[in-house]
């Protein structure tokens, strides 16, 4: 049986107020099982693209298609502060049909997080870890993680990256949006660069050197060239 692309958008456009947040975005992630970096400057449209794919934006043009279900980690907390971590797991089992409580419980144990603590009492970094553990506990074909590494220390960041690698289903595609590109060259199999609501580069690993800061250099060059080209001669 032929399996379609992990994610395909066609002519996806979103207008937020007077701003064209996404402008005719056609993006295909062909191969499953990859970790894809979604990069762009502030306001480029990364979050809007993820929210649109996750089904959180009603007002749009174009189409989105993907296999199975999608798990989305927004860039701000979405679990309720008054719940304990344990209550969150119970609630997620009720709200997400694809949620595996054991996976999340194992992740929380690995991270050394207490389950009797209320989310409102957790630090921002700890809360982000709980959120990521909840999202990875879902058994999906597509994961969208919006800035999952923004509020964590370098040690925890490495732990989270290992978690993403180890706990996603093998056939699942993970799209990670982040500003912290430096040192992550080895994480991504593919990168997508977005600027002014348009995809300006989609590239496989091999076009950058995973061992150093090359990914950041490539990203900056692409953005610079695109903006110069838009300004014209």
């Amino acid at each position, binding site marked *: 049986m032929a399996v379609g692309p992990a994610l395909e958008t066609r002519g996806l456009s979103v207008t937020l107020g007077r701003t064209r947040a996404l402008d005719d975005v056609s993006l295909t992630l062909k191969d499953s099982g990859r970790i894809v970096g979604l990069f762009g400057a502030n306001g480029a449209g990364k979050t809007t693209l993820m929210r649109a794919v996750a*089904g959180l934006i*009603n*007002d749009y043009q174009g189409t989105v298609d993907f296999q199975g279900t*999608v798990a989305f980690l927004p860039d701000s907390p*979405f679990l*309720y502060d008054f719940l304990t971590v344990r209550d969150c797991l119970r*609630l997620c089992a009720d*709200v*997400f049909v694809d949620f595996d409580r054991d996976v999340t419980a194992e992740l929380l144990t690995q991270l050394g997080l207490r389950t009797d603590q209320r989310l409102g009492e957790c630090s921002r970094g700890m809360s982000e870890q709980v959120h990521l553990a909840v999202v990875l506990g879902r058994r999906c074909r597509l994961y969208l993680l919006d800035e999952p590494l923004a509020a964590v220390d370098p040690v925890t960041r490495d732990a989270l990256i290992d978690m993403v690698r180890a706990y996603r289903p093998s056939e699942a595609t993970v799209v990670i949006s982040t500003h912290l590109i430096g040192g992550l060259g080895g994480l991504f199999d593919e990168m997508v660069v977005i600027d002014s609501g348009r995809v300006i580069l989609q590239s496989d690993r091999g076009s950058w050197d995973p061992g150093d800061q090359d990914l950041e250099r490539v990203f900056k060059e692409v953005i610079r060239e695109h903006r110069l080209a838009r300004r014209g001669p």
Partner: protein
Amino acid sequence: MSTVWLVEARRHLGPFAAAITVGGLLGAARLLFTPVTFDVFFQLFSMLAWTVLAGYAFSVVYGYFFLGRDVFLHLGHRSPARATALKMAVQIAYLFMLFCWLLVFNALWMAHVGTDEMPVVLTYYVTARVASLACFAAVVLAIIAVVKRIHGKTVALISALVMYAVVTGGHAYLMWWMTHRGDTTWALGIASDFPVVNQYANILPMMIGSPTGTYADSVSPTSIALNVAVAVLGCGVWIAMTRRARLNFYRR
């Protein structure tokens, strides 16, 4: 009861718990202290709490369905329409609990002032209130489903409020037109004095007074039936609109 219902109830406990507490204190004071003064306070509080909490209920379902608030529930497997209905059900349950709580004090008050019509009046009052809540829920759901197609938050909110005012105003006028008689008086608000009877057009309270005091028997079935009819119509619009509308990309 599933966890999501309990969590949703916990999220909105604060405003209703506050109203129940204050209402209880005023209701007890009305029975224990200077009756006339506290009766006024109690009635004013009942109206104010009802208005504010109905507005709160509207803001919760509108915020979820139109503005995309409560991302967690949006990401779940329930369709936006089902999740909105869940949220509305929780709000209506709280409003009904508040009503029952205030009704206890109203019943005690009636026993306090003495009336032999209490069972009849309470039966009509409870039925009228239940019908009005169902009507409120259905009309609000229908309106937010209609305005979902409007682009722009401000225009949509104004449209929703205007639509609600027009629908409820029309409902009140229709109720008056169907039931008025030459010797009755009509006014907005609620009262605990007889022979005034409290009826509802949607959740708009209307006092109907008659010199004989037996008018409740004839007007209540009409107003209740009207609320039920509008509720059925509202549910029909809600179901039709949410089945036709593309609510987001996700097929759930």
